[in-house]
């Protein structure tokens, strides 16, 4: 699974800690999501999409095998 969380976060000028604070998760969790080590739950993915004013599909895409 690829994601654009880092790119979208940087576009709105937030640090990992600030984004985590907005979403109610830790900075480490944002870091893990950005690096593809952790796949967020659907509620968290929806919150991310809301925070970036986009859709979940715009953030997460299935990697081609």
């Amino acid at each position, binding site marked *: 699974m690829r994601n654009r969380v880092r790119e979208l976060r940087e576009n709105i000028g937030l640090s990992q*800690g600030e984004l*985590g*604070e907005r979403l*109610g*998760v*830790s*900075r*480490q*969790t944002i870091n*893990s999501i950005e690096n593809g080590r*952790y796949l*967020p*739950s659907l509620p*968290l993915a929806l919150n991310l999409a809301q925070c970036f004013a986009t859709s979940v599909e715009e953030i997460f895409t299935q990697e081609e095998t």
Partner: protein
Amino acid sequence: MKTTQHPVRRALSAIVLATGGFALSIAIWASGSHGFALGALGFYAVASIVVFLWAGGRGDIAAILGTNGDERQRSLDRDATAITGLAVTLVALVGAIVATARTGNPGAFGVICFVGGATYVGALTVLRRRR
């Protein structure tokens, strides 16, 4: 993540550790090893204080110890608990086999195996109805 941590939540792991350590120390005392009991009591008191202080810090371990983690930290806790369960299961099974071979009775290992197996079946029965 800056969240206001409830003092009881922060202290929960330390309270569990302190209670277990206190009970163990009383058991050791009752067995007659008073010096060892006092040593165990001191060890668990210090360990509980360390856990309490650590739970007030930052990072994944602090969040898990303070029972205040986010979804990823809770999943880390669940996975670590599952791995711990596997290790305990392995030790209990090997212990039961060895104890049975030596004495004809699995003893305490058998009880652990039974409780573990029954809990697993019970938990599966309940959880599959909820998901």
